Structure formats: C-alpha cells, structure tokens
C-alpha cells in the first residue's frame, strides 16, 4: 500500500523477492557495545549496543541513544567483536555440584546463631 506521506516510496511486493547484490562493507556498519558511567568514580554499566562506522561516531551517537534520560558523566564504547563470551551450551559451567550457599552473603546470616551455640557449649563444659 502506498504511504500517505509523499516523501515515502515503498517497494512493490513483487520486488521483495528479487535477489539483491552482495552488501559492500560500508553498507552495514559494525555494532558497538555501550557502557555508561553514571557518577564520577562508579563502574561503567553495560546499557546496550548501536551501529556506527567508527569509535568516534559510536560515542557521538551513544550520547543521544543512552545518556539522554539519566545521569551520565562518561561513556565507553567497545566494538562488539572485541568481546569474547562463553558459549551458550557452556551454561552449566556456572552450576555448583555441591551446596556452596555459605559463599553467598546470606551464608553469614546464621553465623551469630552458631557462635552463640558454640559459646554455650564452652560454658557448659
């Protein structure tokens, strides 16, 4: 269907399946991962990604995509392909085989209780 906006010309459905010539490198920009530093001295938080032709323009574009509606004192951008990640099928790498909840902060919740018990035992000896 033709757009009501005279500036927009949509392709005819018959053209949708036409084979397109291969893309040139500049036709598709690479993506960058964007990190926001929200206050001075705080660590950079990953907020998303964007397309850009180079790191300088990635920073220019990141400012409006990711630093417009919240506080920000600095931006980082990293080419997405510079990031190495573990494979999805390796997720079990992070599953412990035995109970290691004592390593988690709530593992210390019972410390006082156990200390009391121990003191009590010492006294009754």
């Amino acid at each position: 269907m033709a757009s009501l906006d005279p500036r927009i010309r949509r392709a005819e459905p018959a053209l949708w399946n036409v084979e397109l010539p291969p893309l040139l490198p500049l036709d598709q920009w690479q993506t960058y991962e964007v990190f926001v530093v929200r206050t001075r001295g705080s660590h950079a938080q990953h907020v998303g990604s964007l397309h850009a032709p180079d790191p300088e323009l990635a920073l220019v574009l990141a400012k409006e995509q990711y630093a417009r509606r919240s506080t920000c004192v600095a931006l980082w951008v990293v080419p997405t392909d510079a990031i190495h990640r573990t494979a999805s099928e390796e997720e079990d790498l992070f599953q412990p085989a035995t109970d290691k909840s004592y390593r988690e902060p709530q593992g210390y919740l019972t410390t006082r209780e156990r200390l009391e018990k121990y003191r009590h035992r010492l006294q009754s000896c």
Partner: protein
Amino acid sequence: MLETLEILLLSLADDDLILGHRHAEWIGLGPILEEDIAFASIGQDEIGHAQAYYQLLTDLGLPTPDEYAFKRPAERFRCAHLVELPNTDYDYAQALMRHFLYDAAEQVRLQALRQSRYEPLAGLAERLLREEKYHWLHARTWVEKLGHSTEEAYLRLKSAYHLLWPYAWLLFEELPQEAAMVEAGWLPPNAELRSRWLELITPILAGIGFEVGPPASEVLLPLQGARHGLRSPHFEALLAEMTEVSASEPEAEW
C-alpha cells in the same frame, strides 16, 4: 529600546525555531536509526532554545512563545534564509552541512552573547551553550568523517556546501538597528562575529579540501534582507505547515 531588543531576540529565536522545524522533517527518514534519533533530538533542542529566547520577551510584557511561533504573520519573522531552505530531495549531506554551518555560527554567537551587557541574554547564552556543545561535536565529527569517506559522500557534501555557502554567509547579515545594540553592549557587530565563525570553520573545511571565501556580491545581493523581514519563497509553505494544528483550534490551550 524594547523594539530594538525584540529585533535581536527574534532573529536568534526564529533561526532556532525554523531550523528545528526543518530538522524535525527528518524524523523517521534519517539514514540509520541511531542518527535519526540524534538528529531529531538536536532539532528538538533548537525549538527549546527558540522558546527560551521568546520567553525573554514575554517576561517584558511582549507576546508569549506560542504567540510568536504560531500566530505571527510571515513578514514579522526575522530568521535567516539558510534555515528556511527546504530539505530538497532529502539529501542528508545537505542536512548535515546546514547543521554544521549553522551550529558553528551558534558557537560563535553564544560565546559572544555570554558577555552581553543585557544580563538575561548573557545568562541564557551560558545555559544554551551546554547543549550546543553536543550539536557542534555531532556536526563537526560527521563533516570530518564524510569528508574523508567515499567519493559519493565527498561529492554530495561538496555540492551541499556550494549550495548553502552564500546563505550561511548571510547568517551574519547586519541587523536593523545593529549600531544601537553594539552601543548598548548587547553583542559585537555581526561582521566581527562572521570573522570569528570563519576562523572556526576554515581549518575544518580546508582539511577536507573545501575552499572558503566570501561569495560574489552578485550572488549575495538577491539573497539579502532576511533580517528586515524579507522571506524566501519557501517560507510560506513552511509556516502554513508549522501552524496547521494550532490554527485549527486558535483558542485551545496546549
């Protein structure tokens, strides 16, 4: 003196309002999503700046920002013709080059207005410069990058530059009653601002091989008069579109 102040503030405000409107025509049509968002945001900033200038007049008992923007006859606008030019063929090189030439002028103008002896204007210039810093970074980065990019990018940028240059030059056309404004310490003469503008943009344009120099007087002559209220042939359609909604319900409160 109020009339003189109105001439100055309207020339500043109208430039921002009309360019903001032209930038907004790109919404949804920008070359990539990220740039579409950034450019639309810059346009929105410009409209906000216009509103802030009009407000300085409202504070003195003159019309409100909405009245200035939407209820003023065409001949009472004071913008430069550069900002009125339509987005012909939606060539993004033209949009970027206009943004570059204009926001360089804004840098120079606002830096000078920070020292204005009209204090409300000096304070406003100081505030607006914070947002203008990004506009200038955005414009300069794109022009430098595209100037060293593909042949197509270079040629499009160059033809946009040739088209826009005389209009950009006239951003600094002398204002009516300018001598009184300079005398009052409100701003330096426009001729002085123009040479500061040339100092700012010449190294960047020379860096991509564009020659910078005064346009021929026979080119400039028919384009003059914008600050006196002479509108370009493109203005009427723009104003009709911009005021279409508010004119449909003139008494509505927005």
